């Protein structure tokens, strides 16, 4: 059974990156852009905004290169370029998180070069596993709430609790979809999964959740998919704005069965938490996540969660999409590859520019990696 028709609504949204948000703005809804998954989307949603994740534009960057050094990552360059090219005229505000110095400076450049858009910066504690971090982040969310209330009026606790429930249900649905995908690779392509993921950052969560539930129902109705013997590959990294990266991996003969991308499963791999206030609940839930490379946990090592996820998805190998010049990701990459090697899981690292077509030489590397996995499967 072909599930394309259930993917079509998502592909329609990702096909024109700005259309959904622009149309929402035209209907009178306020739109808030955010950069990072540690920005409190539930709070923005409760305040009535459509939260839209800004992932930059596909293609060359031009104007950003006038302001950023060549050693800034392609994500930062592309995000800034989209602002300078005036692609977000309908945003009421833009929310940055303090993930790295480069993005902090992009926030300042955004403020300086696009007058009229409110730029907010959320300061997420870099060490996530302490009560002090919870207190700090909760206070920071209180500050953000007050700043938002100046724009849109009071945000009642019930509204925040409703948003928390919606986002929790959405995460659960996405985890279920990921589980079905890993158990039945080929029913959906990895690129189709990426379209579902990318659409989640553009659409109203309630509408996206409905689409995901329809897809899950169709998936269940379709029954089990016979395995086709292609090597099962797990994609690690942070960003993947361009589905061409997943397409070219699968064109080389593998199945992308799972990921730990920030624009993928990492955004759904955490549970709700209790708190004395709804904001404390957000703080506790976000800080209990497996930290992304920009944040730290004192006992959990980068790589532990990765090995666990790779085993859960029964992947035979891991392909890293490492964004060139992303220092936090490069630091974590070392213990991650060591953990994989210790677990006997082969890995391939691709240093990529996020917003360009994958170059031919990367195709050769991926194809050789797939051949290598095939060789190891049939000695």
């Amino acid at each position: 059974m072909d599930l394309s028709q259930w993917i079509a609504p998502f592909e329609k949204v990702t096909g024109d990156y700005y259309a959904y948000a622009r149309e929402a703005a035209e209907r009178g809804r306020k739109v808030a852009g955010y950069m990072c998954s540690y920005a409190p989307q539930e709070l923005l949603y409760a305040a009535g905004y459509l939260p839209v994740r800004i992932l930059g534009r596909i293609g060359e960057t031009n104007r950003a290169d006038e302001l950023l050094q060549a050693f800034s990552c392609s994500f930062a360059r592309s995000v800034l370029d989209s602002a300078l090219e005036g692609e977000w005229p309908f945003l009421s505000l833009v929310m940055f998180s303090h993930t790295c110095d480069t993005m902090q400076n992009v926030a300042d450049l955004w403020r300086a070069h696009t007058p009229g858009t409110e730029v907010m910066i959320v300061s997420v504690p870099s060490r996530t596993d302490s009560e002090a971090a919870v207190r700090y982040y909760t206070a920071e969310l209180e500050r953000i709430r007050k700043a938002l209330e100046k724009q849109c009026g009071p945000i009642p606790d019930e509204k925040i609790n409703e948003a928390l429930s919606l986002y929790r249900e959405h995460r659960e649905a996405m985890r279920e979809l990921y589980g079905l995908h890993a158990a039945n690779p080929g029913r959906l392509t990895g690129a189709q999964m990426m379209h579902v993921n990318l659409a989640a950052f553009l659409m109203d969560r309630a509408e996206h959740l409905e689409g995901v539930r329809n897809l899950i129902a169709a998936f269940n109705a379709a029954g089990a998919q016979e395995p086709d013997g292609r090597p099962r590959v797990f994609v690690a990294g942070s960003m993947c704005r361009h589905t061409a990266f997943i397409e070219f991996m699968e064109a080389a003969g593998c199945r992308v069965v799972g990921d730990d991308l920030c624009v993928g499963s990492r955004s759904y791999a955490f549970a709700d938490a209790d708190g004395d206030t709804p904001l404390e609940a957000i703080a506790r839930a976000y800080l209990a996540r497996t930290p992304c490379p920009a944040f730290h946990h004192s006992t959990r090592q980068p790589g532990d969660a990765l090995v666990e996820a790779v085993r859960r998805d029964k992947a035979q190998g891991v392909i890293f999409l490492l964004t060139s010049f992303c220092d936090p990701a490069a630091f974590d990459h070392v213990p991650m590859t060591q953990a994989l090697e210790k677990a006997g899981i082969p890995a391939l690292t691709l240093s990529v520019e996020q917003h360009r077509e994958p170059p031919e030489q990367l195709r050769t590397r991926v194809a050789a990696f797939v051949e290598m996995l095939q060789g190891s499967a049939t000695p």
Partner: protein
Amino acid sequence: MSGDRLYAGVDVGSATAKAVWINSAGETLGSSVIPSGGNLADAATRCLRLAAERAGCAPDAAACIVATGYGRERVPERSRAVTEITCHARGARALFSEARCVIDIGGQDSKAIALDDQGRVLRFEMNDKCAAGTGRFLEVMAHLLEIDLDDLSRRALAGTSPVAISSTCTVFAESEVISHLAQNQPVDDIVAGLCRSIASRVYGLVSRARLTPPAIMTGGVARNQGVVKAMEALLGSPIHVPESPQTVGAYGAALIARDDNASS
């Protein structure tokens, strides 16, 4: 021999296309190396035909043809395409059964491939999109020094005290060579320095892929004794260089064609 099945491998690289015809025993019957030029499909076809002619067989006699190299998807005659990593590993191991690693330096890219005890690929590293540490680097320098590419090898061995070439970038290294010429350094020493520079660049890949000897070197640059000697010094172990290092990928592709045919 009549009735024996024939197989061919064709390796369409950035600089040259290579073809090898083999029999079912894996013996090379004929091979060819021609420039790749602008039309990769045409180069592949001409190369396969020339090798067939040298093998004394009809151009359509192959039971199976496997294509590899950067133009592998452009080869009209291919039964399937396999990457050069896998083909070099296959060919190298067949020519040197003790090999636990392959160092391949081609026209536009270089590779370091680690093999397990069965000859399967364990790990590999490829150079980035840059001509440093490739045959292209040598071509540029040979042109600059007005030395025939084949003569570079002899000149490198004649160099007694290799000059230091510190730039990894081909363009910067070119300016460096010009400075050495201006300082009246012997050309042989400059050539020896260039070979050492390529070897140390590729040695970065070798370390990253954690290669361990015994090593075999393939690709056109392996014909240059200067580079081989410099690499041996870095590796601290002798390197096996097959008789025709340029055609190892095509030979591996032909062997894979034979395996495919046997298992189908």
